[in-house]
C-alpha cells in the first residue's frame, strides 16, 4: 500500500515519468527506484516504532480469555469497548484524569505567569543585580528535581499539604527554562518599539500585555506545550507526595493510577492497557495539533 502511494506520488509529481517506458532514461528510473526504496525504509521504521502502541490498542480491545492465545490476535475483530468503561469506572481513571488535569492546568498557568513576569524584567527593566539574578534562575537548570525532592517532601508535609493539589503543583510553579526561553524572545523585540510605546503612554504592564507577549507568541506557545507535557507525564513527585491521608483517598495522578491499575488488574491486562491508552490520548492530541511548538521547545537548547 505505501509503495502504491509512493509510485502514485512520483507519477503525479513528475509528468515525464508517465512517458512511454522506452523514453525513460536509466538515471530517472534509478531515481524512481531510490524513491520507492526510501518509502519502503520509512514505512518499515514507522511500523516498528508504532508497533508497541498498535499491539496495546489491539490487546485493550480483546476479551480477557483471548489474551495469551497462540498465535496472538493482531486485530480486534470483536472490539470490547467495555474494557475502556471498566478502566474508567472500576479502574478510577476518571478520578485520576481529573487530578492530572487540575495539577497540569495549575502548573502550566503558573509557569506562564511567573516566566513572563521574570523574563520581562530581565529583558526590559534595569535594576541592580539583574544579571546575577538571571544567572540564579539559570542555575536552577543544573539542579535536577531528583536531588531536591527529599527536602521538598518534608516542606510540603509540614505545610500540611501532603496529598493535596497544592502539594502536587507547588514545587513547579516557576521554571528557569521558561524564563530563559521567554527572555530570548523578548530580547528580539526592537528597542524602538518599546520607546514608541512609551511615547504613546504605554506603561510597562500595558506594553507587556499588548506588545511583548503577543510578539513572543511562538515562544509562549512552545513553553505552554512543553510545560503541559512535562507536568502531565510527571512520575516521581506525584508518587511520593500522594497517599492516604486521614480519611481522604490518595490523590493519584493518571501516571500513578496506571501503576495501581496494573496491580489491581493483573489478570486483566486489556483493562490496564485501556487505561494506558486513555492516559496517552491527551498527548497524542497535543502532538497532532502542536507538533511545531513541541519540536521548537525541545530543540530550544540544541539549535539557535
Amino acid at each position, binding site marked *: 500500500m505505501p509503495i502504491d502511494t509512493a509510485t502514485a506520488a512520483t507519477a503525479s509529481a513528475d509528468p515525464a515519468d508517465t512517458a512511454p517506458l522506452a523514453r525513460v532514461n536509466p538515471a530517472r528510473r534509478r531515481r524512481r527506484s531510490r524513491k520507492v526504496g526510501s518509502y519502503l525504509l520509512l514505512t518499515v521504521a514507522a511500523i516498528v516504532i508504532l508497533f508497541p502502541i498498535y499491539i496495546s490498542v489491539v490487546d485493550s480491545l480483546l476479551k480477557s480469555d483471548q489474551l495469551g492465545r497462540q498465535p496472538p490476535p493482531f486485530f480486534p475483530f470483536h472490539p470490547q469497548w467495555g474494557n475502556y468503561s471498566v478502566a474508567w469506572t472500576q479502574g478510577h481513571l476518571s478520578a485520576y484524569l481529573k487530578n492530572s488535569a487540575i495539577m497540569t492546568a495549575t502548573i502550566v498557568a503558573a509557569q506562564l505567569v511567573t516566566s513572563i513576569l521574570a523574563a520581562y524584567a530581565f529583558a526590559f527593566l534595569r535594576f541592580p543585580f539583574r544579571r546575577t539574578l538571571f544567572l540564579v534562575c539559570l542555575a536552577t537548570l543544573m539542579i535536577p528535581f531528583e536531588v531536591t525532592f527529599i527536602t521538598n517532601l518534608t516542606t510540603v508535609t509540614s505545610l500540611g499539604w501532603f496529598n493535596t493539589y497544592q502539594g502536587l503543583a507547588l514545587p513547579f510553579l516557576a521554571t528557569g527554562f521558561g524564563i530563559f526561553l521567554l527572555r530570548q524572545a523578548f530580547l528580539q523585540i526592537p528597542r524602538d518599539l518599546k520607546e514608541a510605546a512609551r511615547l504613546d503612554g504605554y506603561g510597562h504592564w500595558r506594553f507587556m500585555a499588548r506588545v511583548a507577549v503577543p510578539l513572543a507568541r511562538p515562544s509562549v506557545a512552545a513553553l505552554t506545550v512543553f510545560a503541559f507535557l512535562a507536568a502531565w507525564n510527571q512520575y516521581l513527585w506525584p508518587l511520593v507526595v500522594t497517599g492516604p491521608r486521614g480519611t481522604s483517598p490518595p490523590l493519584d495522578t493518571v501516571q500513578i493510577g496506571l501503576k495501581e491499575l496494573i496491580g489491581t488488574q493483573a489478570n486483566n491486562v486489556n483493562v490496564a492497557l485501556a487505561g494506558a491508552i486513555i492516559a496517552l490520548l491527551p*498527548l497524542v492530541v497535543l502532538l497532532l495539533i502542536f507538533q511545531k511548538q513541541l519540536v521548537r521547545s525541545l530543540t530550544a537548547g540544541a539549535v539557535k
Partner: protein
Amino acid sequence: MTTLAHRPSSASPRRVRRLKEIGLGYLLVLPALAIFAVFTFYPFVHNFKLAFYQTPPVPGLPAHYVGLHQVTQVLSSSSFLESLSTTFIFVALIVPISLIAGLALAVVAHRKLRGMSVYRMIFSSTVVSSVAVAAVVFGTLMNPIVGLLPWLGINPTPPLLENTTWALPSVALMTIWQFLGLSFIIMSAGLQSVPEEVLEAARIDGATAWTRFWRVTVPMLSPTIFFGVVVGTIFAFQSFGQIDILIGAQNAAYRHVDVLIYNIVNTLTQDNNPGAAAVMSIALFLITLVLTLLQLRFLERRVQYAD
C-alpha cells in the same frame, strides 16, 4: 532657598521613574525567585545538612550529627556502588543505540518526499509517551503469558523482567523506545542546519552518498551529536518510573536493576533514611553537573559559531 526647593522637583520625576523601574523589576522577578528559593536552593543546601546527620534505626529518636562519617559510609557502601555501576551500564545500553537510531531515522526522513510530514510525526511521536504508559505497554509485550515472546519462541525462565541477566536490558529497550522520539527531533534539527551547498559541492566532486554522510554530514553534525549524548545521558540517569513499574522491590531481579534514583527513593521512603538518600542525591547532582557544564560549553560554542 529657591534653588534648594527647585532641585528636588526638577530631578525627582526622573528619579522617581528610575526607582519605580527598579521596584517593578524586583516585583516581577520575585514570584519565580521565591519558588526557586524554597523548592530548589533551600532543599539543595539542606541535602548537605541531611548528609551530616544520621537517622537512628529506631524511629522517633532525633538524628544526630556524625560529620563526614555517613558520607564516606554511604559512598563506599556496596549498595551505592552497585547502583552507580548499574546506572552506568543502563546509560551505556540506551544512549548509543537510541542516538544512532535517531540519526538514521533523521537521515532517511531528510529527503523531500511527499507525505514526509506524516513520517516525521510518527518518528517524533514517542517523545509524548509518559514513562508510565511506556512501562505498561512494554510490560505487556514482555509478559511471559499474554506478551508476544512465547509466540516468538523466546521464553526464558525466570521471565524476562524477573531475570537477573535480562531485566536491565529489557527496561533499557523500553527506555530506548521512549527516548527515540527526542533523539530523532534533535538529530533532525541538526541535519537541517547542515548547509545544502556543502553537500552539493561534495556531490559534484563525485563523493558517493556514503562518503558524503561520513565525511560531510557527521563532522558538521558533531555538535548536535554531542548535545544528544549529553541530553540522552541525563535522560537515562534520571530513569525511575520504568524500574518502579516494571520491576518493583519485590522482584527477584531488583538488585540488578537498582539504578541510582530508584535506590535514593527506596532509601528515603522504604528505609526512612533521609541522610543516606541525601548523600546519594549529592552524588547524583555532581554527575549531572558535569554533564550540564559540558552541555553549556557546547551551547557557548554554538553561539560563537552563529555570531
